[in-house]
Structures are given as C-alpha cells and as structure tokens.
C-alpha cells in the first residue's frame, strides 16, 4: 500500500512554556492554572491516503486549526511526528521546510490576508509560488498562472488586478489557484468558505469537489460547518478540547453520532 499522503502521529501542541503540572497531555487541563500554557491539541493521530478527503469538525478552540497548522509545517509540534508522503518532515527547517511547503503542500486559509498579499495582483500572488519552486521563464510562468486562474474560474483579464479589488469569493479562488500551482500531494483547506455568502460558498465547494474529482488530490478540510464537511469529506474526525472524540465515515457520524459532543454538534446544525 502506498504511504499516506499526510500523517500526524500522536501530535501534541502546547502554546506557552509548560510546567510539570501540565506536562502530561492526557491529564492536563486545556489551560494550565500554574503556567498559563494552553494545549492546542493532544496526542492527535490522523492519516489521509492519496485520493481521500478527510474532514475535521469542532467548535472554535477545539484544536482543528492547530492540527492543520502542524500539517502545513506552520507549527512545530511539542511532541509527535508529521509525515508527508511517508517522509518524516517534523524537524525540517529553513529551506528544506519551505521546499516541502511549496512543492508538496498547498493551503487555503480562512482569511485571504493569511494566504495572499492583497496589494499584489492575482497573477503575482500565484506566480510567487511558482518562483519559489524554481520556475524562471516569464512566458512559461504567465501561461501556467493564466491556466490556474482559468481552472478556478477567474477571468484571465483580471490577472493583473490587485487582489484588494477582488470580492471575498474571488480572493478564495486566488488562494486556491496559488495552492494548486505546484500540483501538491496534499491540499489543506482551513474553513475555506467561512464568511462568504451562501451562493458564493456553494460555488467554491463545487469548485473544490471538481478539482478533487479531476486530480484525486488528498485533502484535509477543517470546518465548523457540517454542511461544508458533508459536501467534501468521506471520513471525518470530531475534535473537542484538543482531542479527537469520534471518527469514522462522514455520513455515519452525522446520522448516527455516538459521542455526547458530536450529538450536540449535529443537533445544533441549522
């Protein structure tokens, strides 16, 4: 069997110094009363096989974005390992880490400001990603950029418009084009439709689904919106206070939730 496109092995993230009182991730409170450290996630394990879409749901502060940040090498876990395509990349730093993020991972952040330079054109934002991977020929880069913008249904004649003049939905499309630039093995989506109106949300989800059907790219989707997860994911993890409290098939978890927190989450859906 081919290795998982992405794997987190018993990952714990502690924000803050930590002290003997909160050293044990299994028993420590989310916020340590003695040193103030906060446990983002504790002993989190997950894997995404090539072609799979795994969803993570949970309320704000449950640890889902922390998990994604570890997967994107934005955060170095306090404990545990991160593997991309079977390679342990936990300790990658500097240029090696940049290359992994640029060549093997793509990410769409919740807010475009995190993933884009709003003062730069859409084409420029996408081209930066290609340049980071060693692309140099102007014509070649231009062709690839226009192709990517077309793929995310953005008109080519807007390629030279600064992203600050784009709508929220268009900015998410630029993020998607940038994330796809180097055909990554894993696409990470952090609340990709949060803050968008429902019609724009539906179009973005439709686009992500189409990209998955065409590329069979492994995807990890984090959202608090069960509708988003139901539309995109096959398997699902439910996180609560930094832990995975339930996991399984997406439709199984949403139609027959077992854990009290999952039942609360499903029953709270509008």
């Amino acid at each position, binding site marked *: 069997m081919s290795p998982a496109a992405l794997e987190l092995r018993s990952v714990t993230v502690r924000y803050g110094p930590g002290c003997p009182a909160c050293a044990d991730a299994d028993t420590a409170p989310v916020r340590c009363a003695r040193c103030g450290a906060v446990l983002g996630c504790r002993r989190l394990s997950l894997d995404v096989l090539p072609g799979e879409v795994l969803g993570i749901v949970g309320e704000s502060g449950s640890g889902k974005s922390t998990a994604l940040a570890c997967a994107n090498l934005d955060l170095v876990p306090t404990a545990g390992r991160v593997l991309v395509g079977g390679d342990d990349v936990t300790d990658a730093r500097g240029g090696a880490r940049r290359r992994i993020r640029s060549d093997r991972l793509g990410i769409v952040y919740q807010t475009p400001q995190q993933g884009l330079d709003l003062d730069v054109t859409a084409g420029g934002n996408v081209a930066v990603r290609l340049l980071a991977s060693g692309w140099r020929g102007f014509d070649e880069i231009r062709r690839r950029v226009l192709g990517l913008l077309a793929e995310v249904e953005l008109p080519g004649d807007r390629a030279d418009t600064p992203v600050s003049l784009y709508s929220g939905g268009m900015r998410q499309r630029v993020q998607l084009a940038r994330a796809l630039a180097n055909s990554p093995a894993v696409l990470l989506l952090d609340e990709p439709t949060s803050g968008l109106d429902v019609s724009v949300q539906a179009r973005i*989800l439709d686009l992500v689904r189409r990209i998955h059907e065409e590329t069979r790219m492994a995807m990890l989707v984090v959202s608090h919106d069960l509708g988003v997860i139901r539309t995109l994911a096959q398997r699902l993890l439910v996180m609560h206070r930094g832990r995975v409290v339930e996991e399984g098939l997406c439709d199984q978890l949403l139609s027959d939730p077992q854990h*009290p927190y999952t039942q*609360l989450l499903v029953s709270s859906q509008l």
Partner: protein
Amino acid sequence: MSVRVSVDGLRKGFTRHLLDGCRVEVLRGVTFEVAAGSCTVITGPSGSGKSSLLRCVHGSYHCDGGSLVLRSGNTVLDVATAGARELIGARRRLMSLATQFLEAIPRVAAVDLVAATGVGRAEAAGLLLHLGLDERLLEAPPATFSGGERQIVTIARTLATGRPLLLLDEITASLDPGRRERVLAAVRERKREGATVLAVFHDVPRLSGLVDEVRTMRDGALVAA
C-alpha cells in the same frame, strides 16, 4: 456479480446523550438472509426499525451487536465490524442506498448528479427521462424540485451506479402511480440483470417478477406476516 446478505442477531440502539442518556432500542436481534439476485421487501409500521435496518446494512448506522455479512465473489465483509475505509470500498464496489430524501450538491444539475456515478451524460439524461423527470428539469439543480422530482433523481443515481446490491428506502413514497410503476419496473430490470434488492415499503409493491420475499417488522424484530 451478485451479493448475498446474511443478517444474524443484529442489534441497534440509540443513546440520546442530550436526553440524559436515554436509550432507545430499534433493532432487537434481527436475523434473516437475502439470497443473491433476489428481492426482499421489509414492511411494517412507522418506527418499527425498517429504515434503521437498511442503514445498518449500508453502514450509515453503527451496529451494536450481531453480524451483517455481505458476500460477493471472493469478497466477504461484515459491515457490523468493518472500518471506515473498508466501508467506503464496499460502497464503491457493492452497494447503493436510495432514501426518500435527496442530499444534493448545490449548483449541480440533475443530469450531472446522475452522470457523476460514472455513466455518460446522455445515459444519465435517458434514465431520468425514462423514470419520468420533465425534460426541462435535466439541466436544473434539484434544490428547487418537488419531492417526487427529487426522488426520481435519487433513484436514477442509485440505479445508474450499476452496483449489485440496491438498498431502497421508501423510494416511491412521493411518486404518482404512473411514475411509481416506471420506477418499480426499472428496479425489476436491474434485478433481472443480477442485482440483489433489499427494500423498505409501507405497501408491498404488486409488480410481478420483483418481490421474492416479504418480511414484516414490529418493534425492532421480524415477526410472522
């Protein structure tokens, strides 16, 4: 390729944590068999556990006990204990569930929803028209369809997969008599091609060559008809 379904001592209940952990038992040791290439209809009053049984077979509900074995060629899978990836694989190869409610993807046209199962657009359109969908609706997303029109899209999607086990939950509940006959005839055609059918109906369909066995459920158990 056909699928044999063997259900043995199947138990299923729901623990309602939001209601102080109240426990509701819906399947109490259900045992029966559906022979490969045959059609079994489960009938019984509302709340007797018919749909829960179907969802257990599909793996949409957890099973609490007993076994639920699917056999097809060299494949033997106990759905009651299978992991998520095994179930995804089994669904892709072996079975398809049609419920009363269509969970449509926003913005996707009816014909594309059916074509997404792997058939061509022309074949998808032909199937939808054959089952009685108005031609003008083919290119429209089903979000604004009536209950009956949505049901036709659901059934078309299930039939189009070509999978050898069809799980059908009240699939004609919203249809007029004409479309009901067409749908049942299409299911009978799939059965003739070798598909195994496990279906829930309130009223047992009277269509010759379709139903081989009728089982009646009451309070989570099969009873003598």
